[in-house]
């Protein structure tokens, strides 16, 4: 079912300089994204998971062309997105849309719902006034909201309704890729399930691709076809969703999966290991070295690379099992 690649990320990097003193002397770099490769096919959902600060949001912003990269390429429809200018860039911005985590701060409180939904249509001059009204009704129907909501303002809506408005606004441009950054994290469980199902329905209907960024492996398992696990700006493991949970190879993936509480089974596994913020950033070797229970000498010395391990399963570890 998965078709050709829509998006291809090649050795993408983003470094931020660390500046000190009044003259802002550069004293080092933070490697927010450090050599990331993956692709997303048409009608595919790629889940990007990791702990806070691992670079998953930065990765989403780079792919949406909202941040310039330090190095590497992102190909969308075989075109390098960072070399796009003028009307080609505008066309790209129509095709790739971002949905943010917090539906409270991402909708302008002074605009009516109608203005919020139609803003992209006005900017890209897609419809005349009369058509716009029909289009809005169509969009509201798609995301399951009543028509009379358009006269209201964001503060009158619940979190779930706001997230639906965010989706309606995005869909007005007929995008092909939606970068969803923690879109359900701030929602209640019953509403979260509604939105996840809505994501799936829309994907079927419009052949949408998603980059679904989340810290919640449970949510990602239910929506993503493939999952990439990120740690300190690097992809540690990449595999089909089922495969990743059935046969995780990387110690970090295992640690993440073990840490998630389940309603089905009660665990008494006590996890050893320090918190990531307490650890020094390794100068060389594997990024996960200091937290890893299976670390060896070569892990400290040499950086592992993302290598195939089984069918469509990639692991970045010297010692996978």
């Amino acid at each position, binding site marked *: 079912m998965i078709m050709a690649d829509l998006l291809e990320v090649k050795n993408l990097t983003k470094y931020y300089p660390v500046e000190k003193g009044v003259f802002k002397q550069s004293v080092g770099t933070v490697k927010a994204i450090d050599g990331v490769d993956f692709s997303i096919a048409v009608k595919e959902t790629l889940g990007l998971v990791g*702990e*806070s600060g691992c670079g998953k949001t930065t990765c989403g912003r780079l792919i949406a062309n909202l941040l310039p990269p330090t190095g590497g390429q992102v190909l969308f429809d075989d075109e390098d997105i960072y070399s796009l200018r003028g009307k080609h860039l505008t066309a790209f911005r129509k095709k790739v849309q971002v949905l943010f985590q917090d539906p409270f701060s991402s909708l302008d409180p002074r605009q009516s719902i109608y203005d919020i939904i139609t803003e992209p249509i006005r900017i890209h001059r897609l419809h005349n006034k009369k058509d716009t009204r029909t289009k809005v009704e169509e969009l509201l129907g798609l995301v399951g909201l009543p028509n009379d909501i358009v006269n209201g303002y964001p503060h009158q809506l*619940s*979190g*779930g*309704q706001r997230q639906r408005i965010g989706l309606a606004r995005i869909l007005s441009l007929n995008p092909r890729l939606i970068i969803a950054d923690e879109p359900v994290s701030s929602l*209640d*469980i*019953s*509403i*979260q*399930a*509604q939105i*996840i*199902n809505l994501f*799936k329905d829309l994907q079927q209907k419009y052949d949408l691709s998603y980059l679904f960024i989340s*810290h*919640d*492996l*449970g*949510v990602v*398992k*239910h*929506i993503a076809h493939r999952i990439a696990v990120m740690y300190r700006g690097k992809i540690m493991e990449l595999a089909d*969703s*089922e495969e990743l*949970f059935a046969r995780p190879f990387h110690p970090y993936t295992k*640690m*993440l*999966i*073990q*840490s*998630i*509480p*389940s*309603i*089905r*089974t*009660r*665990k008494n*596994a*006590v*996890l050893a*290991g*320090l*918190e*990531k*913020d*307490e650890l020094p950033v390794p100068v060389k070797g594997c990024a996960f070295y200091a937290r890893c229970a299976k670390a060896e000498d070569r892990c400290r010395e040499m950086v592992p690379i993302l290598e195939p391990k089984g069918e469509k399963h990639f692991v970045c570890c010297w010692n996978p099992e």
Partner: protein
Amino acid sequence: MQNLLEIKDLNVEYYKGGQAIPAVRGVDLAVKPGEIIGLVGESGCGKSSIALSIMRLIPPKQGKIISGQILFAGRDIVKFSEDECRDYRGNKIGMVFQEAFSSLNPVFKVGDQIKEAIKLHNPDLGQEECRQRSIDALRLVNIPQPKERYGSYPHQLSGGMQQRAMLAMALACHPQLLIADEPTTALDVTIQSQILDLLVKFKSELTMSILMITHNLAIVSQIADTVAIMYAGQIVELASREKIFNNPLHPYTIGLLNSVPDIATRKERLVQITGQIPDPGNLPDGCPFDPRCPEALTACKDAGPLMVEIEEQHFVRCFKQINVTQG
């Protein structure tokens, strides 16, 4: 065993635009010594209002306890004077909140903030002894190098360490009851599991009772002994953890359990509860869950059901279940 905390018919209201909005509506709940109770519900269901009522921390201008009793070791907290409240807060009952960083004072060292709580409740203790006890509290919550960490400021600690420091502060006076309001929601899963392990350790080693308030059913299933499910200001189901997760009876509980994207299963489509929670200022006449309920009866429209013990120690507020048991 005698109950440590007993809430009887608690009603709490908030004021909004001249109108009284009910937040907690006739809640009964008992906590035994050394028990972890999970209080679960979606946002706005009144779970945090219960916690604030126990701590007597509802801002007087925004709302108040209308009626009911909160008995702690036999004494009614609702009737306490402000001085008595201060003696209880932090001393007999500790509390940790969701956002540790905004709960800590950014301009004081974490150790000194813990020391302040100890000194306040134990005015006879000397400075050095208070200091020693706050270092012990830091050690208790597994903060590495507690002596060095005593002098750290909140911004120098990671999110998990801040939450540990909050726990240390809540535990410094050895409370009999700890109220934890979404203590791990802002944390990464790996850190979350460490904090949960800590809570279980306190329960068994310090025989402390914990009232765990969360929207996350999975967390409750990991650590709770008893689970209370709240909806629109009422407890709709109350039972042991095993009964809630293996034999849920209220349609809302069943719906919630089905809509959790659990890592142990994978479904093509999550079962969803349709609709949204009712507006607390405009609740339906009958059962508040009726508009969303897949199994609603005609009786549900007219009056709200009462809490009934369907099987031993399994309480449900649902007409359908009452009909089933009565044949």
